[in-house]
């Protein structure tokens, strides 16, 4: 019994922990460093000194986490619907 179920259970618990952890991360740190510019907000040209702002993050160096983004989408969608119905 135990040997067959225990890997599954371990897997489930791990998934739960990871999910919760991701949720917590989305709550506490809604933004993450931009991958394109590595959190600097700048894109370097070939010439060493020249740079321009990163277009992906508008120069902030931060991108919204996907989880948070999805959450925002759903809540804002819900909110908009609620106001429309009122």
């Amino acid at each position, binding site marked *: 019994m135990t040997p067959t179920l225990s890997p599954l259970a371990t897997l489930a618990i791990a998934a739960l922990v990871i999910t919760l952890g991701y949720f917590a991360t989305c709550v506490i740190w809604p933004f993450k460093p931009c991958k394109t510019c590595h959190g600097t907000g700048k894109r370097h040209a070939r010439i060493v000194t020249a740079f321009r702002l990163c277009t992906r993050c508008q120069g902030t160096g931060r991108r919204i986490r996907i989880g948070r983004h999805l959450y925002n989408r759903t809540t*804002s969608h819900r909110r908009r619907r609620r106001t429309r119905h009122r």
Partner: protein
Amino acid sequence: MINQHSEHHDHEYDDHRDEQRAEPGEHARVYEFPSKREDSTQDKTDYERNGGTAESAERDTAGEVLEGELVDEDEQNITSQVDPPESGRGPSFWERLNQAERRAILPTWLSSRNQLSQAAKWAGGHYAHAAGYHAARCPVYAAKLASQAPRGTARIISGTARWVFDAEGQPLRSAAARREDAAEYLRLTTQRDARVRTRLALTLPVLLGGLPLTVFLVTGLPMLLTGAVMAGLVLALGAAGGHRDKPVVPGRAVVSTQVAKLTSDIVERALASLGIAEINKVMGPRGSGIAFPKPITRDGPGWRADIDLPHGVTVPDIVERREKLASGLRRPLGCVWPESDGTEHAGRLVLWVGDQDMAQAKQPAWPLLKKGTADLFQPVPFGTDQRGRPVAITLMYANLLIGAMPGVGKTFALRVLLLAAALDARAEMRIFELKGTGDLESLEKVAHHYGSGPDDGTVEATLESLREVYQDLEKRAATITRLARENKALVPENKVTPELAARSDLGLHPLVVAVDECQELFSHPEFGKEAGELATAIIKRGRALGVILILATQRPDKDSLPTGVSANVGIRFCLRVMGQMENDMVLGTSMYKNGVRASTFTAKDKGIGYLVGNADDPQIARSAYVDNPAADAITDRARAARHAAGTLSGHALGQTTTDRKPDTLPEDLLSLLGPDEDKVWTETAATRLAQTWPETYGSYTADQLTAALKPHGIKTNRQVWGTDEHGHGRNRRGFHRADLAKIVAERNRKREAG
């Protein structure tokens, strides 16, 4: 159409008619302008100058004469000028200034020492009461606070943490995250980090250094102090953990009654609800409304509104609808007191609306309750009026009648006055209470005569006392006359003065005769008639001679209250009565019609009545309440004062004058007649009586014997033939033996039966 147009055209040119008239052939048309007649004389001259025809000139003048008649100045003056011209009449500025009322600079409670001390006393009492109230509930408050202490601790910790970690910025940050505004989010987090850094730097030293130090110091203190500090801490934490909707101190020590303000709207609505046609007319859509000559103001513990009633409505119309008025004002009946303003016209209503029902409002204690003496020549405190102002009555030179239904406080009102009289050590008190309940018992120890009971004996004693008073009246009158002859300055108005009353050698001291339930006396089949005559005589003559008669009755009608009494009494106090007849019997003729209606009082208006004859206008008074033990204490004081002054007399000294042997005059008289004497002169009988029983009948003259025999029903005005001391036979007043024998037989039968 053309015609209309031309007319219109004419009007347009109205101002230019002179120009038009100047045109030849046009003047006839111009002449018919309606406005032209105003300056017709000028027109006429113009017209003549212009050479107009005679006919049209005549028409002109004819019209003019007609108009002249209508506006004839002299004629108008004679027929229709009633109102004087607006200007130039009426009181001048100075007259108005002279008559103007000056209002007090300071409110009365500030300017009067008495009222100021009263206000201070009230405030002191109020706060002392509040302090006591809360002190008694102190343990409950402490327990509540202790139970809230954990919550308070948690609240303080979480509050500090929220402050340190900048929780107030959290909504902004999450909003930025929701908007996915990374720049704003970055700015906000940077700000948060800076704040948290400084706040931690402030908090950590306190937490790590200050707190252990405090704990160390507090535990190092003496036991008691440690306990006190800990308790204080717990209470402080409890206070921090309070619920807003569940306060630790739940109730106020003093609950003030909230009374709605009286506004003109409310008064108008109430007046409109009375169903008086004239009021409804002025209140209607085209009416002028009710006039308020003065603003509605606070007056004592209530509101006062001065109202000009519509033409044709008088104050009694309102007073008789007092109950409806109270309903319209949405106030208890005992709060609503419409009165007339004696100085104004008959339609000026003064409406006073009290905060509290008069019967329930707290009444100040009787001023003489604890200390003080009274002077019957000065007003003695009686009670308060509906506005809580004191009401005092000057008993000297007055007589008093109190009337009421049973059980509304008549005897208590009487007793207040008698207690005041008792506190004047000069006053001789003769008190008879013919109900037998002993309500006036406390006055027994100061009374010269005292009787209590519904029996014939007490009634007879009352009558006997009245006879004595009547005889005393004669003596007093003689003294006054003698004094006036000797020194007119002593008796300026042929009245007893305070100086004369104080002199014990003259016998002019105040004499107070009080009969409660006097209907028992006046309607008594045997003594009633004489008592009525004596009372009438005492009321009429005693006033100036220092004799004060106070009567109280619960049955004011013609049989129980002689007309001579009810017509001549000066001061009347009428508590609740049944109807108009009783009301007018006590208060005087047509009082009911004038709106003074004691029948409007209710059963709970104890001690409240109309007081007439005390002030210029009838007033509503509530007699002070003095209970039995207090009355006893007062009479103890009065007795001590009388003892010191040496004025205790009669019953108060233990002399039993009241149970004197019964009136046996008919029997005595019969026994004096010889067996063959059928008729006897009154004079002869008086002489014989005086010789046989000198201590009883020693002072009897023929006239007095006549008066004394009258109540027994013996005819003394018969002409009796006899022989005088000189041997001459003549006709004189006397009585027949047969009449006397009949009366005696009747009396014997009655005595055996009863």
